[in-house]
């Protein structure tokens, strides 16, 4: 009879880790309990039970996935979404403002002004997505509206939504870019001739000043809009490794498959989602310091890569940031350092 009880023990242990408590109790555990009774009869009967168990576990996982995906959009989550929407709109306006600030509207015709402004807002909508994801996860977690196990599915759904928004706005952005391009004065170039009339010379200076912007616009119109990428393959590996290192210690599920999720989904949006998780674990000044640590660490890493320092310098940047946070805290250094290296922020 002892053999009967041990049958399916590993299966029960695995299922308990990957399913919700209620799903395990009501759906998976009864099937395993019956398997353990079957084992008392014969191996043949027990063997017939395993395919059924796998089917039950698959259905249980799909049911949990559905619950995980719908959890952040429940009726009680409205306050979190209101706060997220406020943050997101503020980010959209900021990014759109930054794009307009770097656009020579005064050198464009009426159609060009309209299209450039509209394009700036569409760019803002897309560019604000990562921060919107951070805000959403932060507010959902802070208000305890999201179970830890639902983070992966939630962030994955945000990634899908953000990617769809990005792809859906591509034709609009391309069309607006073409309209702006048609409105750009051909004089805007590095080779703008300096007029003889000294009163007109400032125009040529202005044309030369915006030559880089025109070249960038031309490239976008000719080559299409592409996803931003780090400068070199080594850089990509370094960034991904850093993102992965961020993902592991956060422990959003509390089980080892957190690592599998982290490895499977390394697009930058995942990182922003995990930032939201990490930030939500503190209050007040702790949140501010943690955000500063994460941002400094990532910006430092990106700068190191973009300026061609390569992976060794990138690692130095990470370590320096981590050391700074290590000495900030009051815990023994050997307890803080691993987390600080991984997250770029104090515990």
């Amino acid at each position, binding site marked *: 009879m*002892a053999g*009967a*009880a*041990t049958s399916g023990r590993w299966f*029960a242990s695995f299922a308990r880790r990957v399913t919700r408590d209620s799903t395990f109790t*009501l*759906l*998976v*555990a*009864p*099937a*395993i*309990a*019956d398997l*353990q*009774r*079957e084992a008392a009869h014969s191996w043949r009967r027990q063997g*017939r*039970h395993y*395919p*059924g*168990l796998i*089917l*039950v576990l698959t*259905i249980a996982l799909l049911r949990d996935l559905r619950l995980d995906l719908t959890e952040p959009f429940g009726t009680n989550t409205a306050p979190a979404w209101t706060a997220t929407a406020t943050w997101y709109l503020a980010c959209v306006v900021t990014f759109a403002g930054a794009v307009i600030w770097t656009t020579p509207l005064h050198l464009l015709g009426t159609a060009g002004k309209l299209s450039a402004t509209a394009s700036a807002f569409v760019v803002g909508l897309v560019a604000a997505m990562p921060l919107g994801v951070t805000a959403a996860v932060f507010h959902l977690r802070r208000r305890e509206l999201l179970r830890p196990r639902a983070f992966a599915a939630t962030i994955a759904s945000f990634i899908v939504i953000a990617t769809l928004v990005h792809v859906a706005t591509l034709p609009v952005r391309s069309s607006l870019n073409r309209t702006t391009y048609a409105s750009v004065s051909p004089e805007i170039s590095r080779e703008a001739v300096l007029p003889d009339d000294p009163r007109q010379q400032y125009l040529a200076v202005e044309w030369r000043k915006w030559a880089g912007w025109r070249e960038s616009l031309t490239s976008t119109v000719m080559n299409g809009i592409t996803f931003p990428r780090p400068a070199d393959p080594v850089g990509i590996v370094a960034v991904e490794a850093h993102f992965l290192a961020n993902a592991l210690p956060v422990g959003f599920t509390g089980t080892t498959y957190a690592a599998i999720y982290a490895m499977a989904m390394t697009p930058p949006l995942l990182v922003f989602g995990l930032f939201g998780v990490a930030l939500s674990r503190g209050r007040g000044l702790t949140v501010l310091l943690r955000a500063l640590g994460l941002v400094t660490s990532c910006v430092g890493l990106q700068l190191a890569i973009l300026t061609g320092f390569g992976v060794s310098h990138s690692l130095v940047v990470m370590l320096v940031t981590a050391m700074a946070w290590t000495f900030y805290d009051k815990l023994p250094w050997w307890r803080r350092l691993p987390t600080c290296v991984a997250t770029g922020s104090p515990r």
Partner: protein
Amino acid sequence: MTEKPIRMPSISGTEALIIELLDAGERFGLELIDASEGRLKRGTIYVTLSRMESKGFVVSRQEERPAGAIGLPRRMYRVTGYGLKVHQAYLLLRDALALKPAEAH
């Protein structure tokens, strides 16, 4: 002011069969499979029972076991009064729909 439409409970053929089998008394999943003589499958019985519990057709409890027993406790299922009523209505509807127009008078 229009009245809110009443949501009719739905019951599948498998659910009706389980209620018939549970009418004899409290049973666990494997017993139901054995009693169904091949009509219920191991892969679907637990999912169906879970769904029926959420619909209110059955209730379940963990079996009582002696102290020190190893392994997971089995889950025992029992049909509710509501489940029986829905089942009776289902049988009436099934019989009515099976009638030919001439037999209905």
